[in-house]
Each structure stands twice: as structure tokens, then as C-alpha cells.
């Protein structure tokens, strides 16, 4: 049982499944001979599993840089590297009325207001950054276009999906007209995508302050997340079985922005960026 | 005709179990279907009841062809050979089951159930479940269940075989009484010759899937049409003889010549015939055997005390051994005696 080849285990946010499975993994193995064993859950679940030691990955990758720092710093790590950004928008099904009208150029917020309950999906804001980012995007859009009560209206009609994978599947399979997703997810699934303007797409690190004007507090734990750019960061678990391979993988992410770009992520200026006591194996 | 089988044939796979069987029951008749184990009796019952579809032939009930009619529409009450009591119902629920199907009111139903449980001597077991009954008790419940709906056609597949003689005779008499009183047409399957002969208006004797003979019990018993029936319908002795003359038929048994005035058998002179006579019908010649007009010399070879009587085995001239039933004072082994038998009780079968 098991193979002799070296491997590194990665616990990553679900929105990165495609990136790691189809782009990073094969390329990394090609270069180093080390297999990438990925596991993908919602970003919150990832943190939870590490904290509880349900899972013990070598590398942890988060879709929300701050989340990782808040949850894992101290006990599991004291550094991380931001290696890519992503933008938020609406993935839609172009066979639905909603989709067609969106393609015809009607403003998404008008159309979204007219949808029936459940036509649009967002991630579960209590579990998943993608979920609360959608809520925050609604709030920023409300401010942007002076749409009174838009956020609350939307919260009444949207459906909260548990996990990132279901969101796109719902749109694909005809269960939803559209969903607030990351760009790379739409790219993965080759489904049409309407990117939000920079004002509320969370893609621009320079607008961090603007994004931070909205916040969301989760039901369960009362964890308050303020709006911030979608920045993917990675770290190596202090308890890792294969810290060497882990460091190599993080280094590989830093060195291969093109690969990430191909996967639908954005690697703009100022990225990669290190934070904390980055080990010397890693050179940003 | 109430029930008629018309050229019925049934095969299990390729094995024919019943082959071209035809017979009928007149309304009100009680016919016993008799035959050795494996001869196809149960197969016929299943075909009549509608639980197997015959390979060929027809089943007619009350004049109508029912070969394709489902069992529940045939209105035939059946006691199956293997127990079919409903294990989840008590004795009285089992008996009431057939009544409910016929829309008997529930008060009347209780009455009828009690009546039939009384009949089979199971008042005290009313509330018991079948698993709590002995083999014989189960049988009796099945009988009561079949009789309770007062059907006009009753098929009983060995209903009494698990019972002791007292109870068997009692139920046999009851079946006969019910049959007499209600005139229900009854087909009674049994392997017990005595039972068949006691009960039945007519016998259908089967052998190896075919009908071997049909007739009234005494006729079949006293003048069996085939050697099979002769030996099957009661204990039978056979010995061979040679035909010496035709008119009147005279045969030689060893050195004894016997003239049979009554028999009109079509056998040629010189041929060998088989004679059949029942152990009961032979006695040892003494002053009283006036009715027995034939004599044979014999030597006693064995005497078995079987409780109710003695079985005395004798050897006659031809070397054949015969059994003689004898009520008391059996002769001693080795003794030479003269056997008395009457022409009326002897049957002669031609060669082949």
C-alpha cells in the first residue's frame, strides 16, 4: 500500500481545487518529482480541520489571507506568503432568462433584484469567505449605486450553498440562474462570468481600505470579518511530516505566477508578498 | 358433472408426473383417489385447485372449463398434503378465514367456527397458534378450515394420514356424514386402501401417473381388473397355474386341478396364468368351510403373531408361498394342511 515517491499534502480552499489538481500539482511533480496530495474544503473548514488536528497537512492554503493569520498563527505557523489574488463576480447560466438579459447588458443589480427566491446562490457566509464576500459586495454595490436596502433584499432572495463546489454545480446543472463566485471558478467550469467592477470585486489590493468599509459577523462564533481583497496565501504547518517538500511547494507558487494566471487567478503588482517570520528556504 | 379432468398431463421440467388422466365426479359423489407414493395424486390436486397449470388437458368444474381460472374463483375447498395453516393466526382465526371471504356475518362465523372445532375435537385449542400444536392437531385444524365454508366441492389430499386410528376413524365417519348430509362432492386422496374403500362411492386407482382403474370399491376389490389393483387394494397372494381346459375353465395348480365354473376368462389352453387371492379369503379346511369350493394342499412354513391375528405362511405344490390370515389357534410350522378358498374370491389374470 502507498507509493515510494515523495509526496506533499495540501489542505486548500475549495476554490483552488482546480488550480492545484490540474495546474500546480502536475507542474510541481514534473519539476521536483514530488506528488501533490490535495484536499479541498471551504476555507473555514480548512482552518477548523487544522485546528482540531482532524487533518494534518504539510501546506495550508487559504482563500482569505487574514483568516489564516487569525486562526493558525501561534499554534501552527507564524508566517505566510500571499501568492495570488482573485476577483468576485457573477457566474451565470446563459440558458436562463437571467443569463440572457445579463448578456444583453442589463445591470446585474437590477436583474438580481427581480429574481425569485433561490435563483441566485452565494456561499454560506457563516462558513466561507466567498459567502461573506458576496454579502459585502452587495453592501458595497448598495453604496455604489445608492440602492436603498439592496443588501437586505438580496439576503432574502439568495440561496446559501454550503460549499464552493456546489455553487457552480448548481448553476451548471440548471438549479440556479447564477451565483456569486470567484473568477477562477467560472474559468474552471467554462461557464460565463460577469466580473464586478473593482469597487467591489475584492481583486485590487490597493482598494483594501475601501473594501474594509463593510464587515460581516458570523452567526456562530461572532467572528467579524471586514472586507478585504481576495488574497490567497499559503504556509507550511509546523507539525508537517514533510516540511521540506512543503517549503518547496510554497517556493514553487511564488516562482510560477504564469501557471496561476492560466488557472484564472490574478497575480498583480505587489504579489507575492511575505508576512511573518518566513523561513529561509523561501525566497520571495 | 361437478368435477371433470379431461386428458390432463403435467410435466415438471421434462419429467411427466401425470399423463393423460381423465375422470369425473358426479354431483354428490365421494371419490377416493388412491395410488402409491409418487404416482401423481398431489399433482392432480394442485391442478384441480388451480395452483399448477397443467401442461396439457383441461379441468372442468360444474361443467365449465376452469383451466385458466384463478384459484380463488374456483370455489374448491382444499386440504393440502403439506400443512398450510397460517402461522400468524390462531386456530379459530384460521378456521374463520374462509368464512370471512364468503361474507359470513361475524356472529354466525363464531358459531360455525365453534361447531367445526368441536367436530375435530379441538375446542380447547381455539386460541393456540399452529406452532403450539402437535402434528395431528394441525391436520385437524386444516380439515376444519376446509369444511367450515361448506363448499360444494371438497378436495382432501391425505387429510388423515397423521392421525391415530381412533381419531382417523372418527373424522372419516364425520367426513362421510357431512358428505352424506350436505351432498358435497368430494375427492379424497389417500394412500390408505381401507380408508378409501370405507369412504368412497368410487375409487380411482392411479399408478405411475396414469389411471389404473376406476370403479366401486367392492368390485375393484373382488374382481380387480389388473394385477396392480389386485395387489394394491389389499394384501394379495399370487400363484401361477396352467390352463388345461376352456369350457369350463380348468387350471392346474401344481398337481391339483381346479375348475372355475363362473370365470369367463379368454385364455388359451396351455398358457400360464396368474391367480390372485387375498390372505383373508383363504382358510384351513375344516368342517365349516362349506362356501369354499376349492382345495389346495399346503405346508406351514412360518407363523407370525401380529397381535390382532396370526399371519400363517404356507407353501403350495407350485412352490409359491401364500399368506393366510388366521384369527386364533394357528397350526404349527411343518404341519401339512388343506387350504380352502372359494372361486368367487379368486381372480385369474392372463399371461402378459
Amino acid at each position, binding site marked *: 500500500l502507498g507509493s515510494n515517491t515523495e509526496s506533499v499534502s495540501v489542505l486548500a480552499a475549495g476554490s483552488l481545487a482546480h488550480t492545484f489538481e490540474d495546474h500546480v500539482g502536475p507542474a510541481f511533480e514534473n519539476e521536483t518529482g514530488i506528488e501533490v496530495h490535495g484536499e479541498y474544503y471551504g476555507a473555514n473548514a480548512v482552518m477548523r480541520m487544522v485546528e482540531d488536528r482532524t487533518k494534518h497537512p504539510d501546506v495550508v492554503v487559504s482563500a482569505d489571507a487574514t483568516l489564516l493569520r487569525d486562526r493558525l498563527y501561534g499554534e501552527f505557523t507564524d508566517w505566510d506568503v500571499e501568492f495570488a489574488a482573485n476577483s468576485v463576480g457573477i457566474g451565470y447560466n446563459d440558458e436562463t432568462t437571467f443569463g440572457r438579459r445579463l448578456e444583453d447588458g442589463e445591470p446585474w443589480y437590477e436583474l438580481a433584484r427581480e429574481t425569485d427566491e433561490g435563483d441566485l446562490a452565494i456561499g454560506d457566509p457563516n462558513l466561507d469567505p466567498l459567502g461573506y464576500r458576496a454579502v459585502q459586495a452587495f453592501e458595497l454595490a448598495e453604496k455604489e449605486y445608492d440602492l436603498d436596502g439592496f443588501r437586505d433584499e438580496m439576503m432574502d432572495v439568495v440561496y446559501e450553498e*454550503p460549499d464552493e463546489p456546489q455553487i457552480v454545480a448548481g448553476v451548471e446543472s440548471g438549479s440556479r440562474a447564477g451565483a456569486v463566485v470567484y473568477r477562477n471558478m467560472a474559468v474552471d467550469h467554462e461557464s460565463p462570468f460577469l466580473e464586478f467592477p473593482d469597487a467591489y470585486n475584492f481583486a485590487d489590493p490597493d482598494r483594501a481600505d475601501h473594501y474594509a468599509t463593510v464587515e460581516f459577523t458570523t452567526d456562530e*462564533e461572532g467572528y467579524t470579518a471586514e472586507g478585504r481583497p481576495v488574497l490567497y496565501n499559503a504556509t507550511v504547518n509546523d507539525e508537517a511530516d514533510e516540511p521540506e517538500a512543503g517549503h518547496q511547494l510554497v517556493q514553487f507558487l511564488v516562482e510560477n505566477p504564469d501557471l496561476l494566471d492560466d488557472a484564472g487567478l490574478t497575480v498583480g503588482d505587489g504579489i507575492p508578498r511575505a508576512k511573518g517570520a518566513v523561513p529561509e528556504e523561501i525566497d520571495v | 358433472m361437478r368435477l371433470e379432468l379431461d386428458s390432463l398431463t403435467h410435466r415438471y421440467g421434462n419429467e411427466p408426473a401425470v399423463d393423460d388422466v381423465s375422470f369425473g365426479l358426479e354431483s354428490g359423489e365421494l371419490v377416493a383417489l388412491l395410488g402409491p407414493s409418487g404416482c401423481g395424486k398431489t399433482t392432480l390436486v394442485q391442478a384441480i385447485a388451480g395452483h399448477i397449470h397443467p401442461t396439457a388437458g383441461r379441468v372442468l368444474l360444474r361443467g365449465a372449463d376452469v383451466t385458466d381460472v384463478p384459484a380463488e374463483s374456483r370455489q374448491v375447498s382444499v386440504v393440502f398434503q403439506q400443512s398450510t395453516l397460517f402461522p400468524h393466526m390462531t386456530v379459530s382465526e384460521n378456521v374463520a378465514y374462509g368464512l370471512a371471504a364468503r361474507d359470513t356475518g361475524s356472529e354466525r362465523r363464531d358459531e360455525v367456527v365453534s361447531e367445526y372445532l368441536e367436530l375435530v375435537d379441538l375446542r380447547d385449542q381455539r386460541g393456540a397458534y399452529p406452532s403450539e400444536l402437535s402434528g395431528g392437531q394441525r391436520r385437524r385444524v386444516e380439515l376444519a378450515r376446509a369444511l367450515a365454508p361448506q363448499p360444494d366441492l371438497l378436495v382432501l389430499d391425505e387429510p388423515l394420514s397423521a392421525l391415530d386410528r381412533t381419531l382417523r376413524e372418527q373424522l372419516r365417519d364425520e367426513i362421510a356424514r357431512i358428505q352424506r348430509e350436505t351432498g358435497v362432492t368430494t375427492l379424497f386422496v389417500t394412500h390408505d386402501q381401507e380408508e378409501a374403500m370405507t369412504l368412497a362411492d368410487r375409487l380411482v386407482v392411479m399408478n405411475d401417473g396414469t389411471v389404473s382403474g376406476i370403479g366401486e370399491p367392492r368390485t375393484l376389490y373382488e374382481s380387480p381388473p389388473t394385477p396392480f389393483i389386485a395387489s394394491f387394494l389389499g394384501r394379495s397372494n399370487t400363484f401361477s397355474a396352467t390352463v388345461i381346459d376352456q369350457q369350463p375353465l380348468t387350471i392346474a395348480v401344481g398337481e391339483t386341478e381346479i375348475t372355475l365354473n363362473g370365470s369367463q376368462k379368454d385364455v388359451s389352453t396351455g398358457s400360464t396364468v396368474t391367480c390372485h387371492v387375498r390372505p383373508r379369503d383363504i382358510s384351513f379346511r375344516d368342517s365349516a368351510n362349506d362356501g369354499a369350493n376349492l382345495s389346495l394342499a399346503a405346508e406351514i412354513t412360518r407363523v407370525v403373531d401380529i397381535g390382532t391375528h396370526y399371519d400363517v405362511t404356507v407353501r403350495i405344490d407350485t412352490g409359491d408361498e401364500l399368506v393366510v390370515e388366521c384369527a386364533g389357534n394357528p397350526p404349527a410350522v411343518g404341519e401339512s394342511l388343506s387350504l380352502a378358498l372359494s372361486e368367487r374370491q379368486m381372480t385369474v389374470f392372463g399371461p402378459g
Partner: protein
Amino acid sequence: MSLTEVFHGRRTSRTPELLVPAVLGGLILLYFALPFVAFLSRTGTANVVAGLSTPESQTAIRNSLLTAPISTAISTVLGVPLAYILARRSFPGKRLVEAVVILPLIVPPVVGGAMIITAVGRFTPIGAAATAAGIPLTDSLVGVILAQTFVAAPFVIITARAGFGAVDERLEQASRSLGYGPLSTFWNVSLPLARGAILAGVILTFARAIGEFGATMMVAYNPRTMPTRIWVDFITGGIDAIVPLALALLGITLAVLAAVQRFGRVPTVIER
């Protein structure tokens, strides 16, 4: 039952005879029990009552107690007749029907859920019609029931079929000959005799339905049932957070099981 008695009477002198099977069986029991024991000993049961009195837990329990019995009822009403036909009749395509019956067992529930969505999602013809009629088939209690039924119904079908197969056909023949048609015979004889098996199947179906997560998550993540709530609790609060609902789930199922056994006088759960 006399046979039980037979064994009862001799139990003491005979138990060692079955030592080998007892040891083998003990191993798997141990393996089943170990995770529960480890789970409970790790987490403790201190805050169960508090955990169950939150409105979220209450809602989840209410939803589960509403949907699982309905799914079980649907599965039973539709599945038992099918089981009877499978036990008693041969017909062309029977193998296919049998394959269809076990398909939902083979497919991982999440995949099953995805398939259900492709069939009855809100923009499919069926789903759209239902939504128009005011009965959305996804993201609703109806959706939960659809998911539970899909995943759990094979249990009652398979168990009931085994039960019918064990009923002596001659008893059915006897009933027919006493004047009952096939349906009344089914009702009066086959059904009561297979009762133990059917109840066992109903219990299994209920257990599977109330514990169903994968397909439910796909078809109706909301409104939350106990398993979806457990998942959310797990992700937000970790393994310790799921203790109250997990115990409630086990408790409810075992209570239903005991009730059905007592009420239906089934000797044991998993008998036939």
C-alpha cells in the same frame, strides 16, 4: 416461541460451542463501537442540553423529525408492493429493475444528489413546473424528502423482498383456495407474515433517511436538517460542537427503533 425456548434452556451449557464465531463477531463489534467511545470520551457530554436548546438545533431537529418519517412512509408505501412483485413474479426486464433498485445504494450520495438536481433542479422542466406551482423541489423540505427517499428507499425494498421470499408460497395458495384474490391474499397473508422483515426495513430506511447528508446537502442545504446542521457545526465549531446533535440523532433513531420493535412486536431489529 418454543424454539427460542429450546435454546434458552440450553444456553448456559452451550455458549462455548460458538466461541469462534463469537470472537470474530466481537472483533467487528469492537470496531463499530470504538469510534463512538473515542468520540464521546474525547468530547464529553457536558453541554448537550445547552447545545440542543439553541434555535438552530431546534429547527434542525424539527425539520428532521418532519422529513424522515415522510420519506420513510413514501418509501414503504411505494417500495413494499415493488418488493412483493420482485419476490413473486418473473417478468422480462426483472434484472434491470433490480439493478435500478440498487443503483441509489452504489452511487455516492453527493453524486446522487447532483443527479437529482439535474432531474428536478429549478430550471429543469419538472423543477420549473413545481416551482411555478409553489412547491419548489430544491432548497425546501420537499427537496429534503426527495433526497432522503432516493437514498433510503432501497433499504425497505431489499429487506421486504427478502421477507416476502421467505413466506411459504403454499400459504398464499391456501388463501387463494379459500376464496381470496391476489390482493387480499397479499394483505391477509403475505404482509403479516413478512411483517418482521418489513418493519426491519422500515427502521433501516428511517435510520438512513434521518442520517442522510450527502444528497441532502446537494438538493437542499437549506432548510437545515440534523445532519446538515451537524456539518455546519462541525465546520464552525469543530468536532466537539457536534456532540449534542449527533447524540440527539442517535437517540431519536434508537428510540424509534425500540418503539417500532415494541409496537410491532418484532423480535429484533435486524431480523429478516
